[in-house]
């Protein structure tokens, strides 16, 4: 199965989950997602998702300047983002349970 398609559907949820634990900058969040097992996640997909969640008010952002190098842009979760995370977590668990159930009953005959 093409997991990149599945990944698209859960990217918001997983990014929110990762940021909810601790604020992070773009590549840091990519790295945490990969360490969490989503190894195929694309850098640009994560950056784009961060921007979209920020535009929707689920994330807040702030810049951390650096003395020598380029500045870093950090993201943190907002109360609205936590609501969304909770809602989507419930949705996902329900969905995953339903699909698992379906596979168990319908797939048994295969």
């Amino acid at each position: 199965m093409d997991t990149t398609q599945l990944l698209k559907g859960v990217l918001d949820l997983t990014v929110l989950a990762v940021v909810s634990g601790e604020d992070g900058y773009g590549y840091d969040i990519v790295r945490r997602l990969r360490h969490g097992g989503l190894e195929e996640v694309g850098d640009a997909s994560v950056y784009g998702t961060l921007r979209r969640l920020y535009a929707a008010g689920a994330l807040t952002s702030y810049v951390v300047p650096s003395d020598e190098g380029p500045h870093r842009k950090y993201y943190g979760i907002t109360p609205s983002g936590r609501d969304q995370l909770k809602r989507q977590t419930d949705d996902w668990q329900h969905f995953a349970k339903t699909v698992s159930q379906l596979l168990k009953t319908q797939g048994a005959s295969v």
Partner: protein
Amino acid sequence: MNQTTLAVQPGVTTFIEQVRARLADLPPEVRDELTDGLEADLSELVTEHADSSSADDSSRSPEPLGEISVASIVGDPVTYADELRAAAGLPMRTAQRARPSVGERTTSVLDRGRRRWESAMAMPLLSAPWALLVALRPLWWAFRAWVAVQFLDLVAGNEPHRLVPAIAGQFIGSLVLAVAVVVSVQIGRGVWWPGDRRPGSRALLAVLNCGAVLLALPTMTQIPGFGGYDATRFDYVSQVDRGLTNGGIEVCDIQPYSAEGEPLVGVQLFDQQGRPLNTACGSWNDRKRPWMLGDVQRWNVFPLGIQRDGDSVPTLPTPNLDQVPAVRSPLSESEQGSEPGPEPGPELGPGPGVGAPADSSPAESPNPPADRSGPTERSQGE
């Protein structure tokens, strides 16, 4: 959180500029927001890759340290920008999008052609032969090198064309061919060129391959023994065509008989336009000897002389038949009479066949008439 100070890695700025160019249709603040912080993130990414490459030599990244490009890690900037835009939920470029560059279009044409070809070759009937051809690719690599060298040799005007072109001598020719084969095979293996698969290289390679295919046949026909032009055979055929044939067989000599059926000697024959009859194979056969008009050879006087091996002088051939049945003139029987006996007068037109020359007397002797020089030694100039 990684708080170490990070230097901007070479290539990152360029990459971000290319990404921003691809997002040029977006409002500036949206674009800034999308690419803000990207410099630090990408620099960290590159640094991390460089570290892992140096730590592990078996890393898949073949570039030496310090030359790792951003694109080799995250893909080309255009795809990257499109992914960024899609994930951010922004509309894809449409009308705003500039016409694709020549390179992009070339790539897309080549990719499309390749996809079509591969799907065609995946059909049940074609897949096995195609797999065989793919396995034979090295032969093609060698062959196209040969075609290229032969073609250059041909263009340079060198002749004659041999299997191994003789450019400035057989040795140099062999050397050039060997080098060309090596180069072609290395290109085929993608070792020397076009390793980068850039559209320009791919297109050039496609054109060169097509050129080799088109030139293969014309080049091969220049090589004798490969169905090439064969001068001797061509001349032979045209000679036969120019001569006289009878039922498809060459006529080399003519044995004239009178209407009474007696053999004639020294009969001069001309065609309907008054041209001397030319039995081409007679002038060919080095045993035949022409009659002479002064010092001019006459090959239309029959029978021709013949000089057999060991003979010092030519003689006239002995007729196959001592006598043939007498024939009648096509003119009316009342004039002619029912008897074939009377000698046709000079006023009679020539009958069919060779009984025409009324003034030529039946020859009793095989020797030519005394007033003619008769068959002589054939001159070398013929």
